[in-house]
Every structure is written in C-alpha cells, then in structure tokens.
C-alpha cells in the first residue's frame, strides 16, 4: 500500500488576505489572462502570408475542408498573451529554486546565443555529412569531455533525457547478457530510487527487487549481498543517492554485482556533487546517464527538453544505440544503422542523431568552466548544501547524521504536534517568495524535504533562504497554523483542487463548455 505522499483535500477556507477584488479581475501588474481560444476571433491572423494561386490541389480528395477550430489573433495580442502568462511563473532567473534532485542552476545566455548560430541551428540532420563536419565535431568534442569527466571509455549520445538514458543503459546491459547467452530476470533497485528506475527496468522486461537502506541512509550492503545471485542482471544505484548521501560502499556494491556477472547502472542525476572531484569510472560503473539539463546547465524550459547521454564501459560500448559519430581520415561521419562495427547495437532510440541543441549549450558551459572550473562546481554545490544543513539542523529535522553531498534531506518530524504538514510548510514558503524544495521524495522518509541550493546562489541568497526557513519553523512551533494551512495567500493562485482535476479531468478547452464554475 503506497501510503506516503501528500494530503490533497481541497482547501475550503479563503480569507480576505488575497487583496481587494477589482472590476477587471487584474491586480496591479498581475493580469488575469484568458485562453487564446477565448481571445481569438475569426479571420484574424498574426502572420502575413503571400497570396495563394488558383492551382487545383493534388491531395487526392483528402483536402481538409472542415473547420479545425484554431483561434485567430494578431501579433500584438499573441505577444501580450504570452508575456502576461509568463509572469505567473517562478523561474531560476528570478529566485533560488532549491529543488532536490533537479539541480536548478543558472542557465547562461551564452548557451542560448551559441545554439542559435545559423551554422548550428539551420542545419538539417539529413544533409550530406560533408556539409556538417562542424556539427559532428561538436558532438564528438562533447562526447570527449563527458568521457574525460567521468573516466569512462565510451558514450552513447542519442538518448533524449535522463529516463531515456536509463532505458538505453539497461538495454545495453540486457543485450550484453544475451550476447553471452544468459537470461537473467531481476534488477536490484534501492527503495530510495527515483520512480524512473523501476519504470525503466520494467520496460526492459525485468522484475524489480527493492533493497532497503541502512540506518545511515545508504543502501544496505548486507541486504544487497543476500539478494545477489546469478539471476541479477544489474543494480541501479544513484550516487550520491536520493537522500543526498554518497554511497560510501559503492565499490563493494560494484564488486558484488560484478562478482555474479551482473552490471552496475548508475543514475547520474546527482553528478553535480561529483563533477571534477570524483571519477565515476573508478567506482565500477558500467553505464551512467548524465542529465545535461541538470549538471550542465541546459535550461529546464518548463519541463524540457533535456538530453541524457550515457557513458558506457568497454563491456557495454558495442551495444550503444545508433547513430554513432565516427571519425576517420576523411573527417567525421555517422554510423546510422546497426551494421558493420555497430552490428551489436541495440538499435535506434529516437529520430535523427540526438539533442543537438542541448549539446551546443552543454559544451559552451563546460568550455566556460574548463578543467580548473569544473571541480569548483561540485565544491560550491556541496559546500552550499552543507551550509544550509548546518544552519537548519537545529531548527528542522535532518533525516541522517553527518555531512550531505549537494542536497540536504529533512523530514517532517520537526513539525510533529504543530498541525502543519510538509505540504503546508512548502506552500508557506511560496508566500515568502521561494519556490519550495522537493517534497515527499524520496519515499524512504516521512514528509521528505530535499533541499538542493546548487553552486549558483550567493551567500546572501542562501542566508535569506535560511532565515526564512528558520522563521517559518518557529512560527509553526508557536502554533501559527493558518500561516501554513491556507498558504499560499500571496501567489497568483491559491491552492488548486487537484482532486477535482483528477476525478473529472478537463484536459482541453472545448467551445461549447463554459469555463469552470466556482468551487462550492
């Protein structure tokens, strides 16, 4: 029974604290903005196209003559629409975004400028490779940087995101085992693992066996060894783990799984703690995905796109998905299908060659830091997280003793008896001007609060955040529950009714349906 998570009963109370109501519904610079479908009018258009000719079509009778239903708007209306709604979003550019496991660091605009150079943005993936030697060289250069940073011999560049990279890594593991004539059925996953890990293992046809954590929050080595046998294909380990702790017995874990002929998949989501300081290849890793949108600053864009290249050991590199960027005397080329040297490849995982736009951004970032700067990222990230931990540990309840890596895990025990939940606490942070930390993840502690400040915060910003957290904690303990249970009161919206959204899903606008009625 999955009983962890947050309360969802919708909020009934609404105090008058939201501010006075106005005729327009706007409040100063905060504008209520309708949907484009409600704003549009027939016959309007925000683009000027050349006139069409009278040519009869050659669509074989399949001309779309019915109405699609798209709204028409002029350019100024479109621009205003998106500017207005953008202002209802928090962003890392606007404030600290302490989301554990997400690595919300500064997204440099130089990355954006480079990605838009016509020589990189206006090239088609199916152009003859002689016309895109610079693009192939860029991919090859980034691949080189990733291999050197991790100390691994090979890298698969095409996976589109972390979860996609996990699938890639696990598939190469399964392919390697099958090439040896072995059929194994299980993958070991710590109970603190991110949900993508078991989901991915399932899509590779593996059963998941969960391994518990020990009292210090690391994977229980004894339990792991007891579970290991020659039916185990792999262990999927995140390091540092999702509790923000370095798995100090990682080498023993690697040895245990290698000892039965299995493989070590490392979830690289937390690479920000290790870059330039620790060589992942020396930990016995066989495959690890790297989230370019976490560690290497490509912007989150409201949910994506990302990129998830996977570094691979010698044992797995032959199975890497195509295409491969290969270099020879004549320059660079693409091995696009699973033939010749790539005969053992698991195949293609997405269209074309990979998330090139994210490669440009990540390489730009890495070159800006260089060999001297990269370790400073991990140092400042880990230092900042420990600073936050040190200053908050006597007010809140850290889940584990000792230092953390790049993120600090707390649980809800410090709120016992206050009537305030982790969810309430998080919502009250919004009123203070902060995006909340990650909540209710990992599932191994109750009411988890996972804080990852990253290296992009000044000390002043950290101090402001810390002092607000201390103030909130004091307030909760002093019994000021309404500050929490009704929060947020000052944001663009108050708490939304997620139950209603799931029970009666309205997933698109429809012309004949009126907008949602007010809550009873």
């Amino acid at each position: 029974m999955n009983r962890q998570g947050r309360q969802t009963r919708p909020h009934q109370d609404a105090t008058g604290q939201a501010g006075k109501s106005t005729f327009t519904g706007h409040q100063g610079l905060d504008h209520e903005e309708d949907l484009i479908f409600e704003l549009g009018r027939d016959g309007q258009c925000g683009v000027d196209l050349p006139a069409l000719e009278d040519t009869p079509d050659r669509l074989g009778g399949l001309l779309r003559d019915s109405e699609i239903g798209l709204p028409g708007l002029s350019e100024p209306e479109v621009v205003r629409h998106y500017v207005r709604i953008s202002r209802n979003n928090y962003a890392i550019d606007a404030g600290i975004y302490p989301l554990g496991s997400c690595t919300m660091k500064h997204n440099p605009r130089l990355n954006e400028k480079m990605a838009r150079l016509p020589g990189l943005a206006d090239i088609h993936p199916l152009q003859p490779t002689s016309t895109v030697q610079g693009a192939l060289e860029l991919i090859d250069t980034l691949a080189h940087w990733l291999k050197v940073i991790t100390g691994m011999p090979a890298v698969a560049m095409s996976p589109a995101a972390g979860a996609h990279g996990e699938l890639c890594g696990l598939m190469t593991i399964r392919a390697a085992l099958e090439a040896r004539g072995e059929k194994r059925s299980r993958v070991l996953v710590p109970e603190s693992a991110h949900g993508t890990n078991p989901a991915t293992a399932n899509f590779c046809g593996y059963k998941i066996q969960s391994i518990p954590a020990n009292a210090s929050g690391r994977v229980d080595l004894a339990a792991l060894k007891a579970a290991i046998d020659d039916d185990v294909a792999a262990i999927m380990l995140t390091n540092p783990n999702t509790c923000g702790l370095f798995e100090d017995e990682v080498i023993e874990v690697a040895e245990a799984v290698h000892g039965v002929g299995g493989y070590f998949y490392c979830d690289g989501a937390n690479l920000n703690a290790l870059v330039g300081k620790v060589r992942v290849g020396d930990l016995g890793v066989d495959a690890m995905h790297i989230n370019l949108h976490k560690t290497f600053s490509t912007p989150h864009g409201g949910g994506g796109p990302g990129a998830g290249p996977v570094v691979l050991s010698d044992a797995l590199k032959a199975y890497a998905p195509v295409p491969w960027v290969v270099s020879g005397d004549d320059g660079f080329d693409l091995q696009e299908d699973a033939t010749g040297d790539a005969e053992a490849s698991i195949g293609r995982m997405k269209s074309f060659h990979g998330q090139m736009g994210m490669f440009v951004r990540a390489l730009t970032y890495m070159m800006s830091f260089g060999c001297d700067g990269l370790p400073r990222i991990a140092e400042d990230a880990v230092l900042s997280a420990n600073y936050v931990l040190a200053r908050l540990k006597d007010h809140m309840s850290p889940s584990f003793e000792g230092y953390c890596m790049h993120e600090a895990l707390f649980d809800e025990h410090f709120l016992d008896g206050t009537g305030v939940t982790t969810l309430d606490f998080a919502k009250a942070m919004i009123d203070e001007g902060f995006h909340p930390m990650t909540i209710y993840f990992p599932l191994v502690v109750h009411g988890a609060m996972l804080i990852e400040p990253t290296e992009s915060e000044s000390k002043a910003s950290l101090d402001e955040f810390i002092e607000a957290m201390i103030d909130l904690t004091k307030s909760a303990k002093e019994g000021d529950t309404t500050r929490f249970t009704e929060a947020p009161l000052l944001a663009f919206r108050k708490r939304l009714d997620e139950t209603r959204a799931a029970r009666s899903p309205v997933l698109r606008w429809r012309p004949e349906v009126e907008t949602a009625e007010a809550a009873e």
Partner: protein
Amino acid sequence: MRYLPLGDADRSAMMAQIGISSVDDLFEGVPRSARLTKPLDLPPGQGELSVERAIGRLAGKNRPMGSCPSFIGGGAYRHHVPASVDHLIQRSEFLTAYTPYQPEISQGTLQVLFEFQTQVALITGMDVANASMYDGATACSEAVLMATRVTRRKHVVLSSNLHPHYRDCVLTTSQFLDLEIDVVEPLPEIDKQTACVVVQNPDVFGRLRDLTALSEACHEVGALLVVAVPEVVSLGAVKSPGEMGADIVVCEGQGIGNGLNYGGPYLGLFATRDKYVRQMPGRLCGESVDADGKRGYVLTLSAREQHIRREKATSNICTNSGLCALAFSIHLSLLGEDGLKGLAMLNHQTAIKLADKLAAVPGVEVLEKTFFNEFTVKLSGNATEIVEALLARDVMGGVPAVRLFPERPDLANHLIVAATETNTDEDIDAFAEALGEVLS
C-alpha cells in the same frame, strides 16, 4: 568564475559554520581511489569571447540550409518561424522554469500546456493530447506500447512506408518485451490478435492515403489504428487522422515553431480518444479551480506516471519537450485557423511547382500524383552521387532514399524531395537547372 557567486570570504564563513577547514572534508566518504587529485585532461576555462570563437569555428564548418536552395525533408522540415516566437520563449519565466509541480506559481507553464494540448487535439482531430514527448519517433513507440496495453494483445503491424526512424524506435523499444512486430506493405489481414496497425500519412515517400477504410477494418477486430504524421504542417491541408478514424495520432511537431537544429530537440505530439486517456503516457495538464474559485491549471492523472506508479507506470518518461511545445503553441497562435491552412496550402503549391519543374527535366520521373509537400522522384542515375554533384552546384537536392533505406538497393536511384514556403521560384529553377546539368 563568472557563474559562481561565492567568494573566498563567503566560503571561509560557510566552512566555519559547518565546522570544517577544507571543502575536501565533505568528500571524506568518497573512496580514495576515485578521487581526482589532479585536473582533468581538458582545456582550462574560458571567457565568453573565447568560447564564442571556439563554438563559432565549429558552426562555420557547417553549411546552413538557408545558404543555398535546399529541398531536404525526410521527417524534419524547414519552415519560417516568426521572430516573436524566439523572443517569447527566451523570457526567463518560460526558459528557466521547472516542471510545474507547484501549480500556484506555475500558471504560466500550465496555461501554455492546456492551450497546447487543445491545439494538438484540434489539429489531429482527436479528443485529448498530452503535454508532449521527445519526438515523433519515440511518441510512435509509446503509441504502440499503449495499444498493446489497451487491447491486451501482442501482435503489432507496422507499415513499411513508415519513416524508418519511427519503425526502428518501435523495434528497439519492444525488443525485450513479449510482442510480435511485422513490418509490411501491403497491409495484411488483421485479426483479433492484432493490437494495432501503424501507418504514416503522408508516408515516408510523400504519398497520401485515405485511412477511413483501414480504421474500420481495425475497429471491426478491436485493433487500434495508430497514425504517424512527421510533417505537422500537413494537418493544415490534409484531412486529419482523427476524421479518418484513428485511435492514436503521433506527430513530429518540429515543423511549427522549432528550427532544424541538426535533429534535436524536437517535439513529439501524442493524441488519442477520451476513452483511452488513463492509458496515455506523458504529462497531462487539467483545468481546476483554486481555493477562491478562480480557474487554474494543474498537472493531473499523475497516477499513470513513473513518480507514482513506478514499475507499473504507462511510460518511464519524466522530462518532456516543454520549451519546444511552447514555441509550437506560440507559432500556432500566430497562425490561427487561416494562417495554418494558408501556410499548408502554400507549401503544397510550392511542391506542385517543384514537381512540375522537375518532371520536365529529362531523366527525372515524379513517382506520385498526390502528395503534400514532399514526393519521391526516380532519377536516371544513382541518387547519392547525384546529390553530391548537386552540392557542387550549390543545391541541396533532397534525401537519397537509400539513406533511409540502406537495405533497399532497388531504391538507389530514388530521391525524396521536399519543398516548403521557404523555397522561392528561383530556388526551384536553380534545382531544376542543376539537376538537368548533372543528368545530361
């Protein structure tokens, strides 16, 4: 270093608070053998100017499509993106926001997703769409898996006229699952073991087909019809898959709002019928109200997703293609009904001009009478060599079919060409002239 705000004094104060004398004390738990004691074998850090030069040098070694007449399609299409789009997507609040898990402070992203989902449902002619996937090809493999879940069947039929990247993604993703996949044309008899039939319209060679009869045949045996549309602009001129009875529609959305970017990041669109919504992969944005009764939006039906359902999730997808979806949505808002239809027809008319001009060149046979903006020609010589020769004459002439189908030597002389609104009459003339020279 310009991206690191902490100064030495800050670090000292922070270390004092923690009670350590060196940052390395925090890395105690790391096995010594894995600690890096000397700098990585990589160049040192550089200022903006230096980095610009280095990346600029790499960019300078590539030939942009806009630098000469170019007619390359094959699953990615060069369309004009209005200037407003790129400015709007670079607003901090859109560019640097995270997934909208705290809806009260993410109404910007959430309203965009709600509008995007609606737009995708409208253009595909379906009931409901998700908040995007990585690209059309991965969306296609997710559609196949969804069809097998919905029908609880194992047999999948893929048309051999499906873009090979889409076909290969399906085959790769399903290789360790208990499914039987056939890649065939013409389509076989389907029966109650068939989970789905996957076709592309227009297909990889540019051909258009009425799918109504096929959808009826599928429904008669309880199978689903999955339709892939790699050129999303075609939906402005061609009857939608929804109107023809599709159950799941997947598209490559790159053609609207997003540049070529050498193949990524792209934008997977995924749409289906209401009755299948709980089996749909990917994020979903839904409408609700807040505590004051004001309309707002939230991510919903999350119980399908990996962070809740873990090994029983409908997909392992976490990150989507959010910013590309925003770009798509803004561009489509600018186009509107008239603009999308006008743009699509402009593409079609440009392709007609191209087809007629090329058909008049000796040694060129235009293979189809119906197409949208892409069609296949059969040349009197090897298409790959001819494309190289055209390049020497400053024309990027299209995709040799064998690049997509290396296992089909019978297609060695076939060339797939695409025309969009970015191709002028001069471009078309230059192509025809160059081709005439090369073939003579």
